[in-house]
């Protein structure tokens, strides 16, 4: 809209900022108690579009506030580098449908290595392209991590994740809270 100067009356925001706002306001009563003893380790992917290319560190901080609230500060491991300097997963720019899978996976090897270095069992990917690509390179290079949308882990933490909403959870969490 900015690019084309299309006038509009509404404001624009990301669900991540709303999650953050609702947690601070106490509307979203979510915490990391569920993971205190389980100690499942999580990392997060900073999507280029909402972090480096738009709200930058502000969005990276908000994303971490939300994720750490859900999984616990002690169970969160950042990739290096991350935030504004994060590496693109390699699924962006249409690459997942660009027709060059070999190059796409070579590109994604950096992301794969970054994830593996964290030792995390789960990567939270708040962008659908990142989700698909990180999952794909994980399978391709033999990683043992899984990739989640934020809403899955948020609902798990609040004890409201339905039985059929657990596709992306691994064996340790697939039955948790049922």
């Amino acid at each position: 809209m900015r690019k084309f100067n299309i006038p509009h009356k509404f404001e624009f925001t990301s669900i991540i900022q709303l999650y953050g706002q609702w947690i601070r306001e106490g509307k979203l009563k979510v915490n990391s108690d569920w993971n205190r003893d389980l100690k499942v380790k999580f990392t997060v992917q900073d999507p280029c579009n909402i972090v480096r290319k738009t709200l930058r560190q502000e969005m990276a901080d908000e994303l971490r506030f939300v994720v750490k609230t859900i999984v616990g500060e002690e169970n969160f491991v950042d990739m290096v580098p991350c935030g504004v300097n994060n590496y693109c997963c390699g699924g962006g720019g249409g690459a997942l449908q660009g027709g060059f899978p070999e190059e796409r996976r070579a590109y994604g090897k950096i992301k794969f290595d970054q994830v593996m270095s964290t030792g995390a069992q789960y990567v939270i990917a708040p962008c659908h392209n990142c989700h698909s690509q990180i999952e794909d390179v994980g399978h391709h290079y033999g990683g043992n991590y899984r990739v989640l949308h934020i809403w899955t882990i948020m609902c798990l933490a609040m004890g409201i994740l339905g039985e059929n909403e657990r596709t992306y959870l691994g064996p340790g969490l697939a039955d948790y809270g049922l």
Partner: protein
Amino acid sequence: MTSPIELDDLECEFKEEVLDRVPDALLDLCMTCGTCTGGCPASGLMDMDPRKLLRMVNFGMDEAVKKSKWAWVCTMCARCVNACPMKINIPKLVYNLRGAWPRDKRPKGIRGSCDQHIRAGNAMGVPTADFIWTVEDVAEEIRETQPQFKDMQVSVDRVGAYMAINQNSREPVTEPDELGPLWKILNIVDADWTYPSVMWAGENYCLFLADEEGWRYIMEEFVDHIDNNLGCKLVVNTE
């Protein structure tokens, strides 16, 4: 025998073209330091990297540059311009390089998704009626099987809702059960929200295809629907 390059004789048509369209791309300022290339995951793929691409553009090697498929391997992630000491906008250069390809020669997958989006409002090409049916079906199942959410309302095109929420079309199409968790969160915080039926998908393959006309059309249709039909005050991107 090789001879020195005569700078005065260089014809850099493509560079001039890009600079006309993107005056702040600063393509002439490259010091060839290679910071872009050092931090780019696409460096070396297809024997190309950001610095080399920019050199070729600045040497007027237009034909070779336009022939390289690297423009489709770079994801325009902007790590290069973020690190560049001269702030040269390489992603914009790549975007324009994509746009220099005849539309029917651009990658079929990206083109197909862009065409579907223009036609159906989402890159998967699902008819709006099917999207609405899926949403209602999943919502009904949650109401029936999860007692805590027996009164949960999910709507499409509810006029006057405060928020319009978009959704990547892969969710309703290939993994509809992924919709429920988001709705439950929205339900818990008592959010006043709806899905728009026009251009409801979160993705944007026309941007990736460098199809300006298609991209603009999608945005205009979306803005018109939100402002003039629904009156939502906030548009929420879910990815």
